[in-house]
Structure formats: structure tokens, C-alpha cells
């Protein structure tokens, strides 16, 4: 009897305990749904926007010495909507009729660019040991305990009230007000809205201001939850919130609210009761510590895979899409680059390797080796995004599988590391194939979210298993291979080996994209609708692409850790970094292998060459001549590449192909000019 009472009390307490974090998820989920409903953009940058307001709030309140109220007004009421206006005006206005995957990539770019940009512009560096505080006076310390089982802090109470007010207010906005109606109309078809005499630009600017305001509000309200000032925390919370938003198919505000709250409560219940069950059932024990961190991602993945009709829930298509010119056929740009150009590229690349091989010091040799290994990983993005038209956000997990395979087989079991690389590749290929089979019914955006869920699941749970990441997370010493008499302990030799592996992989990618499956994928251009309408099931080709991509990522990950001599999961493979990989590759050109290779070179060498200013050292001959404003903050690479994705959305073929196309256009123009000059000369008139 006593036992039963305590169970009820505990249950009640757990539910109450789940409310505050649930409210946080709900707030972010509501904001996310709001952005999606009013702009049609699946906006990963929502967390970044929230972070930006939070940083400005702290800058104003703590460093400029403004009061809490003026600082909150500045950051939430003024800055946040302005940021929304800016994003709409500079970026999303031009993408209104772009395919959803392009806007998704751009929002990923902004996700990495905005936090760095804001931090640098505001010159914000949190005092060490300080943690974010909220807007509510004494928010953390004053507590209320209405039921006598769980005391709510004032912060939590305010956040809960705001979430409830927001969900009611926003629901009313969409149901009863003309503005809400116009926002919904613009999302479906900006052009038809304009045919009704309504300026789509004005409406969507307003929509972005509103959703950005909400991001700012959520940003300062949930700040007390975090112990550090980190954009990553906001991104992670947002991924959890996406799970809540997905419950309502991304469009229902009440469901997003309920989903967020439900998630918080379920997590609290599990963390209260699971330990008791494991006391009774020993076999549950190993599961226990992994269940909690995995809940949001399992829910997100589960919702995506099992909720029927999700696919249809995503946007009705614009009936006036026919007004846009067809997207340029990129394949033609690539093939017409010609073998001369390809040969030139190959010679340049080999030349660069030769110079590094013979001239470079150890640091540089290792850096270039890293770039080469990264190139192999990036080729996996060429396959999955460039060729299959899917966005995968779990390439980091695949690469990590390769790295861990090398660690487990090569270091722990003493197998040849090169064999371990191949086995790692095979494992990752199998995982990738299984993943894509699970997702075969889903289209673009959902694949991106599901792979993100997998990446976070891998990060939160699998990495920590002894048979996967194990002790390598603390310390590892990966041996270099020996083939016959060649000892790759020598860094230059290993560089050559890595280049050969890269060349083989690039050739493999090339052959795959020319083969039957590749041609099929290219013909589909990532369009499931096109695929189904011509009666091809896209799933088999897609599974093949996923498997190959997983293989490449793992091989690259394996080579990377062999080159470095250790596995550094935290600095090499975490989900947020993998998201940045995609952005870099996309900026340089996701459709051709050379894009991946140049992207890798930039990714690894950018910091040394540009941010540390060594390039000036080379030009000016001497380390002493590097201008004094170097080194630049490493954050600049996030800013540059993040903003580079905007470019991608307008020119999906990437920087490299663009310059190739420009070159061709220029030579054609020159040829045309020549004709004019010739005929002018014939007529005896000056041209």
C-alpha cells in the first residue's frame, strides 16, 4: 500500500519535473512550426537566430550595463525582427520558388554562419565560468511549489506561460486574421497571392520578422537552461524540438506544443522509473544509460518513419511554378568542360602533391594528407547529394564508423589497418543501405531530418559503446601500415598512399555516375515525383548510392585517423561538423568529384593558408612579413562557407563549374567579337 502511494507521488513528481524542459522544447518547436508555416522554409537556422538574440541580450545587459528590460527590448523586440527582415530581404526572398532542398542547404549555411558572425561583430566572449541568465528577475532562485511535490523556478514558470500564450495567439493569428491568411497564401504560391493584389514580398518580410522575433524570444527564455554560451546547445535543442514539431507534421501549432511537453514528460518519467525496473530486471541494465539521451532522436526517427501521410503534409506545390524557367541542366556544363580541362586539373593536382612530397615540412605533409583523406569523405557527399539529390546529415557518423573500425580492428585487435579500412567501409555501407531502406518512402526534407536524427543518435548513444567508440574517445594510437618493404611510418610515403586511395575512389565515383545506376539517378535529378511518373522506383538506385556513399565516408574516415595516428571523434566527426562538410562541398560544387577534392583542400588548409596569413608569408617571402592583423579568428571559415551556400542556391552547380561556364561563355563571346571585327574590316569601317 505504501509502495503504491509512493509510485503515484513519484509519477506526479516526474510529470511536473518534465514540464519545464518540455516547455523549452515546445517553445522552440512552436517557433519552428511558425517559420515553416509562414515561409515554407525548413529553417535549421532558427536555433542560430535564437542564439544571436541571446548573445546580444547578454552583451547589452552584462557588458554595456543596460538594464534587463532595455537589453531585452533591444535583443528581442528590435534586433530579432530586423534579423528576420534582413534574412528575408537578402536571402530567402530570392529562394521563394527554389526547390526545398536548396533552401534547406541555405538554412544550414546560415546555421553555421550566424552565430560566428554575431559573436565576431559583437566581439562577444563570455567571462569564463559565467553561464547564460534569463530575462526574468531572480528567475533561477525564486521558486513556486503549488503541489508540494516539485518546485518550479520563476524562469520555468514564465517560459511555460509564454509558450501557452504563444500557441493560442499564433493559432488565432492563422485562423482569424487577414495577415495569417496572407502568410499561408504566400507559402503556397507567392505569385497567385500577387495576382490577388497582395505584395508577396511585404507579407513574407512580415512573416520572417514575426518568426525571427519568436526565435529571439525563445532564445532569451530558454537561456537559463544552458551552462555555456554555445550555438551548439541551441542547435541540439532545436533538433529535439523538430521531433516535437514533426508530431504535428510541422504545421500544427497545438501538436508542436503538445509534442514538446510530451517529450519532456516522457523523458522525466523514463528517468524516474527506468532505474527501478532495472533493479528488478537485470537484463535492462545495459540499456538503461543509453535510453535517456536517445529518446528525442528515436522519437524523431520514429515519427518520420511511421507516421503515415507525412510525405503529403509537406507543402502543396505552387500552381504557378510553370512561370519559372527550367533549372539549368548542370550535367552539360560538366561534360563540356572537356578532357583538356580535366587533364589540366589532374596535372595541377599531381604537381601540387609532388611539391608537397618533396618540399614540405612535416606539419604541411600531415595537413595535406588530412586534406586528401577529407577529399575521400567529401566524395561521399558528391554521390549522395550531387548525384542522388538527397541531403544526408549523417556522413560524419559513417566516417566515424570507418575510424572506429580502424581503431577496434587495427589498434585493439592488431589487424592490418588497411584491411580494417576496407572492413569499416563495408560496415558503413551496410548501415547506410539499411538506413536508406528504412527511408525509402520519404522525400528530400524528411531524408535530411531522419539522417540528422540518426547522426545525433549515433553521437549520443552508439559512440559511447565499448564495441564502437570505446576507449578511443579517451586515447588511441593508430599504427601506420606496412606493405612489403614500404613503411608508411614515413609521412611522405603515407601521403602518396592516401593520394592513390583518393584517386581510386574518385575514379570509382566517376564510373558509378557514368554507369546504369548513376545515369538513372542523374536522370531523376533527385525528383521523386519525376521518378514515379515515369514508373521507375527510385529506391533501389538510392540504396546503392547511400551504400557507396557510406563506404567512401568510412574509408576517408579510416585514412584520416591513420594519418593522424589517433581517433579524435570530438574534433573530427561530430554531427555539427558533418553539417559543415556538406556546406563546404556544396559551395565548391557538389556535382563533380573535383568539387569535393578542392573543397577538402580548402576545408583543411583554409585556416593555415588564409586565416593565419601564411599565404602572405609565401608571397612576401618570409614569416616575418605576415601582416599583423593575422591570424584571423577561425570562425571566419564558418561565416564564409555558411554564406557561400546562398550562392549555391542561385547556382547549384557550385563555384568550380560556374567559373568553367563563365570561361566558356567568355571564349564564345570573344569568338563572336572576332566575327564582328572581321566583317567590319571587310567593310572598311572601324569596329
Amino acid at each position, binding site marked *: 500500500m505504501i509502495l503504491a502511494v509512493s509510485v503515484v507521488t513519484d509519477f506526479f513528481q516526474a510529470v511536473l519535473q518534465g514540464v519545464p524542459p518540455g516547455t523549452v522544447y515546445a517553445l522552440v518547436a512552436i517557433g519552428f512550426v511558425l517559420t515553416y508555416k509562414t515561409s515554407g522554409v525548413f529553417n535549421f537556422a532558427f536555433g542560430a537566430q535564437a542564439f544571436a538574440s541571446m548573445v546580444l541580450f547578454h552583451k547589452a545587459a552584462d557588458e554595456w550595463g543596460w538594464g534587463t528590460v532595455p537589453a531585452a527590448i533591444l535583443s528581442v523586440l528590435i534586433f530579432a525582427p530586423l534579423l528576420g527582415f534582413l534574412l528575408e530581404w537578402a536571402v530567402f526572398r530570392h529562394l521563394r520558388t527554389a526547390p526545398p532542398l536548396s533552401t534547406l542547404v541555405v538554412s544550414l549555411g546560415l546555421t553555421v554562419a550566424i552565430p560566428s558572425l554575431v559573436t565576431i561583430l559583437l566581439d562577444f566572449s563570455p567571462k569564463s565560468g559565467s553561464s547564460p541568465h534569463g530575462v526574468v528577475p531572480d528567475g533561477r532562485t525564486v521558486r513556486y511549489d503549488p503541489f508540494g511535490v516539485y518546485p518550479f523556478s520563476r524562469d520555468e514558470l514564465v517560459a511555460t506561460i509564454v509558450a501557452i500564450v504563444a500557441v493560442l495567439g499564433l493559432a488565432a493569428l492563422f485562423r482569424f486574421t*487577414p495577415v495569417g*491568411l*496572407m502568410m*499561408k*497564401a504566400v*507559402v*503556397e*504560391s507567392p*505569385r*497567385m*497571392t*500577387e*495576382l*490577388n*493584389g*497582395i*505584395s*508577396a514580398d511585404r507579407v513574407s518580410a512580415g512573416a520572417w520578422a514575426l518568426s525571427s522575433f519568436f526565435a529571439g524570444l525563445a532564445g532569451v527564455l530558454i537561456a537559463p537552461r544552458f551552462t555555456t554560451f554555445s550555438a551548439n546547445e541551441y542547435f541540439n535543442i532545436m533538433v529535439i524540438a523538430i521531433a516535437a514539431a514533426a508530431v504535428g507534421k510541422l504545421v500544427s501549432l497545438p501538436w508542436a506544443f503538445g509534442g514538446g511537453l510530451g517529450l519532456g514528460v516522457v523523458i522525466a518519467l523514463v528517468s524516474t522509473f527506468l532505474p527501478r525496473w532495472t533493479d528488478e530486471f537485470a537484463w535492462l541494465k545495459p540499456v538503461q544509460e543509453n535510453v535517456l539521451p536517445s529518446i528525442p532522436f528515436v522519437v524523431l526517427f520514429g515519427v518520420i518513419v511511421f507516421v503515415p501521410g507525412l510525405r503529403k503534409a509537406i507543402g*502543396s506545390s505552387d*500552381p*504557378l511554378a*510553370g*512561370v*519559372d*524557367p*527550367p533549372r*539549368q541542366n548542370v550535367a552539360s556544363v560538366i561534360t563540356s568542360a572537356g578532357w583538356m580541362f580535366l587533364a589540366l586539373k589532374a596535372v595541377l593536382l599531381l604537381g601540387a602533391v609532388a611539391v608537397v612530397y618533396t618540399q614540405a615540412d612535416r606539419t604541411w605533409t600531415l595537413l595535406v594528407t588530412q586534406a586528401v583523406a577529407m577529399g575521400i569523405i567529401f566524395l561521399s557527399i558528391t554521390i549522395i547529394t550531387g548525384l542522388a539529390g538527397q541531403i544526408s546529415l549523417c556522413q560524419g557518423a559513417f566516417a566515424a564508423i570507418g575510424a572506429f573500425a580502424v581503431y577496434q580492428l587495427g589498434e585493439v585487435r592488431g589487424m592490418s589497418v588497411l584491411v580494417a579500412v576496407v572492413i569499416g567501409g563495408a560496415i558503413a555501407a551496410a548501415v547506410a543501405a539499411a538506413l536508406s531502406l528504412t527511408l525509402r518512402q520519404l522525400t528530400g526534407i524528411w531524408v535530411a531530418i531522419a539522417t540528422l536524427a540518426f547522426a545525433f543518435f549515433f553521437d549520443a548513444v552508439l559512440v559511447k559503446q565499448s564495441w564502437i567508440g570505446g576507449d578511443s574517445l579517451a586515447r588511441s594510437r593508430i599504427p601506420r601500415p606496412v606493405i612489403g618493404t614500404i613503411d608508411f611510418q614515413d609521412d611522405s610515403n603515407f601521403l602518396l598512399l592516401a593520394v592513390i586511395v583518393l584517386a581510386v575512389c574518385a575514379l570509382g565515383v566517376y564510373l558509378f555516375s557514368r554507369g546504369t545506376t548513376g545515369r538513372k539517378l542523374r536522370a531523376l535529378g533527385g525528383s521523386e515525383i519525376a521518378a514515379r511518373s515515369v514508373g521507375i522506383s527510385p529506391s533501389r538506385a538510392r540504396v546503392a548510392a547511400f551504400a557507396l556513399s557510406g563506404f567512401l565516408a568510412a574509408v576517408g574516415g579510416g585514412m584520416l585517423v591513420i594519418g593522424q595516428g589517433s581517433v579524435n571523434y570530438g574534433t573530427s566527426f561530430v554531427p555539427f561538423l558533418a553539417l559543415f562538410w556538406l556546406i563546404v562541398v556544396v559551395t565548391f560544387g557538389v556535382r563533380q568529384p573535383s568539387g569535393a577534392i578542392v573543397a577538402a583542400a580548402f576545408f583543411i588548409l583554409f585556416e593555415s593558408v588564409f586565416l593565419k596569413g601564411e599565404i602572405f608569408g609565401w608571397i612576401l617571402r618570409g614569416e616575418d612579413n605576415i601582416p599583423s592583423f593575422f591570424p584571423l579568428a577561425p570562425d571566419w571559415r564558418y561565416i564564409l562557407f555558411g554564406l557561400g551556400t546562398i550562392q549555391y542556391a542561385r547556382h547549384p552547380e557550385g563555384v568550380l563549374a560556374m567559373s568553367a561556364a563563365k570561361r566558356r561563355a567568355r571564349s564564345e563571346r570573344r569568338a563572336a567579337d572576332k566575327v564582328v571585327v572581321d566583317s567590319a574590316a571587310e567593310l572598311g569601317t572601324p569596329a
Partner: protein
Amino acid sequence: MSAVLELDDVHAGYGPFRALFGVNLSVAPGEAVAVVGSNGVGKTTLARVASGLVRPTSGRVVVDGNDFTRARTFQFARAGVAHAPEGRSTFASLTVEENLELSIRRVRGNSGVRAGLDEAYEMFPALAERRQQLAGTLSGGQQRMLAMVRVLVDAPKLLVADELSLGLAPLIVEQVYEMLGRVRETGTALLVIEQHVSHALKLCDRVVLLDRGSVAWAGPASEAGEHVQSQLGVPAH
């Protein structure tokens, strides 16, 4: 009195693709002009230029005496050019009533919405029964009606109607044209794009025959018969 719409040597297209090559056309107030021509000659493009959806690469577009060449689509609508586009032209994700509200509110203000809705439902009782239904779930004919009603509450100066009869049962086509006739009587000028020419010729004063992006022939509807027949290979009546 100036023309409601005037196209002056208009060239237009889509990115690198060209579709119109120097089209001249004018529609006087209250006049009904039919644009006919076979598939792909640029009729829809012409309609889109007339309502600002496609901006000409050269030439001029004049609405009611004002230069609208660089104007935005919504400004065309506000100047009194209504466009019923080809194919589906309702907001599938909005209810019937929301579809109507969207256009009524802009024209008549918040206070006129109720009266406008009543008027619309009176015109089409079928829509009244389905007012809370998502427009995407209506039949093709009903959607066309909805699009028309939306355009009509506006009492525009010019109605651009692109292939209204496409894919509709003959009986419904009759209804649509009957409606266009009524619209004419209210003083709205019409620019009717049609492949099925017989209805259009009956309704309109003048005919513009389009061929591969240029005007092949233009003249009174009464003289159009042989030209249309030689161009399209179908009898006009």
C-alpha cells in the same frame, strides 16, 4: 479614352528561352479580344505578360495609360488587371471561403468581406455548400468556378482568362462562357485565350492569331474564320 492594356513590341521569355517576338496588342475598355493559336505558340506567355507574371525583355506594357513594363505583379492586380491562370489556380491548402476572402478583402476592405462572400455564394450556390472545404478537394470545374468568382468580385477593368475551358465537360464550358458573357456586360474588358476557338469567336469582338511568338493575323472576329482555319486546321464555327 486610352486602352486598358497595350503591348508594344513585346519580347519575352523564360531565362534563356524566348517565347514572344515583338507582339503588339491593345485592348480597349469593355472590348473582348480572343487570342488563339496552336499549342506552344506563346498564348500563355502573352497572358502572363499582360498580368505582370512575366516581365518583357524589351518593349512596353501599358495599363490604363500608365507604363507598367517594370511593375510588379501585385501592382497589375491593383490597377485592375485580373488574371485567371491556366490550370489549377486556387490555393489548395486554403478553404473555399479563405480563397474568396483573400481577394475580397483587398478590394472591399474588412467591412465588405461579408457582403462580398454572400454575393459570391449567390453566384455559385455550389461553393456555399463547400465553404469550409479545402479548395484542393474541389472538382476541376468547381475550382475553375472558384477562380472565376474570385476574379469577379473584383469587378476588374480587364480580365485575362487563360484556357478556361481546358479539361472541362462541355456543359460546364457552356456555363463558363455564359459567365464570361455576363462579365462583359458589366463593362470589364476581356482577353480570352483559347484553343477551342468557336466559343471565343462567338464571345469576342476581335481576334489575335498567334504563331510562334508573333502575331500572324489580327482583325474583327467576323473575318477571323478563314485565317483561323488555315492556321489551326479547324473550322471556326
